[in-house]
């Protein structure tokens, strides 16, 4: 009984995804890749693709640097400051997004690439902090001390010991930060301006009207594959570490 129920629930979770992916490869009963070819012929889509990519890459880069240093600084020693990084994760995204919009308006900050990027970084810093913080062991301090007693100065210790030990956590955090930024919709839609479009915004602009189309299926499939590929990398790194 319970097995049948479990099976049904997993079917419920996965059939829609499989259906989208399958239908993006089908045209009138035949298997085709023409919907994907069409995507790359559409200049709007290609430009949005580059926009999404650059926002995701840059926000990952900056948030990983800021968030990792913060995680290293606290290393599970200061609970009060840590909670500063947990709030952005429990707060519903929509309230965060509209606050940012008001903030930009008040400063007359031009809405577009930079306003979107700055918002994504804020959100990602919190995630990076939590992931890196969770993976850095409190033993790191004594490992660094060991390096010092063996004759390595602070800089050598940081480069030869701290960075390599923190690396798996940093890579994991980068993958999650990239994914969150890559398919972010709510924060982007509130903080973007005229002329700056990302892939999720493009999908929204058509799907919000309830329209399903083969090219939209293909675009969704494309984004899905990117996310799943990142998830795969993440799993690979996590299991390697154990």
């Amino acid at each position, binding site marked *: 009984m*319970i*097995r049948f*129920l*479990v099976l049904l629930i*997993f079917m*419920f*979770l*996965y059939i*829609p995804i499989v*259906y*989208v992916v399958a239908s993006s490869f089908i045209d009138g009963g035949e298997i085709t890749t023409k919907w994907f070819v069409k995507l790359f012929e559409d200049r709007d889509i290609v430009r949005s693709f580059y926009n999404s990519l650059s926002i995701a890459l840059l926000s990952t880069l900056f948030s990983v640097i*800021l*968030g990792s*240093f*913060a995680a*290293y*600084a606290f290393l599970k020693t200061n609970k009060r*400051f840590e909670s*500063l*990084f947990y*709030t952005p994760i*429990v*707060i*519903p995204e*929509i*309230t*965060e997004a*509209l*606050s*940012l*919009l*008001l*903030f930009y*308006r008040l400063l007359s900050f031009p809405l577009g690439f930079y306003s979107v990027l*700055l*918002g994504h*970084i*804020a*959100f990602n*810093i*919190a995630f990076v902090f939590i992931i890196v913080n969770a993976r850095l062991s409190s033993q790191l301090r004594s490992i660094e001390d060991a390096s010092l007693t063996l004759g390595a100065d602070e800089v050598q210790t940081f480069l030869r010991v701290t960075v390599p030990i923190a690396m798996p956590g940093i890579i994991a955090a980068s993958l999650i930060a990239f994914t969150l930024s890559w*398919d972010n*919709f709510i924060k982007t*839609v*509130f903080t973007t301006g005229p002329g700056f479009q990302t892939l*999720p915004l493009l*999908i929204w602009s058509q*799907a919000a009207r*309830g329209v*399903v189309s083969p090219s*939209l*299926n293909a675009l*969704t499939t494309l*984004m*899905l594959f990117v*996310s*799943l590929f990142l*998830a795969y990398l*993440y*799993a690979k790194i996590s299991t390697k570490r154990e």
Partner: protein
Amino acid sequence: MRHFLALPAIIYLLVLFYLPFLITLLYSFGFPGFTLKHYSEILDPLYLKVFINSLILASITTVLCFILAYPLSYYIALKAGKWKNFLLLLVILPFWISFLLRTYAIMTLLTPLGLMFTFPAVVIGMVYDYLPFMILPLYASLERVGRSQIEASYVLGAKPSQTFLKITLPLSKSGIFAGVLLVFIPALGEFVVPTMLGGTYATIGTITWDLFLRYHNWWKGSALSVVYMALVLLAITIYIKRSERIEL
């Protein structure tokens, strides 16, 4: 000394996360002037109906998610054996895909079924999106219950049904609470699903969106957002208080 390395990140969050919330609060009181009228306007029957709509939708979503997630989590945590890791992977995978894409995916199925723009469509979409958020905390708490406690209960003469009611369910209480919170709070403010699948079904999320992005009524939008935030903070405070008590 080393703590200074956290300074850039902290300053960044203070300026680009915490400060904007303060500004929202200011706007809700009629910035640059001061008035309470935006709050009184929200109490208007029209908005009250939206609040009730959102509560109904969030409640139905939470209950349905719980009904589906509990047996699933129970199975993965205690019965799945060698399949456990694989099933867990299937639960975690959707977390990597954004709501927008997943909602679009369910839309492609609802369209041929002719369910689009109905209340059931919205509910199905909500449950579809939020189910993993209920499964994971439930699984985590049931995992901690472990077999030995259940076996101890059998040895002491409890029937399976008694064991479930007296041991398993109470021990997974913290997971139930976390799951309910993780679904209910964001579901209250959800606007992707009702907009895409429900057409005109108004919730706190869709109204906020309209106030900000369509009517540019920052003040009323802020007041609505502040009320929503207050509800969220209330729920989180209760949760923290409760989890402290459970630990004791």
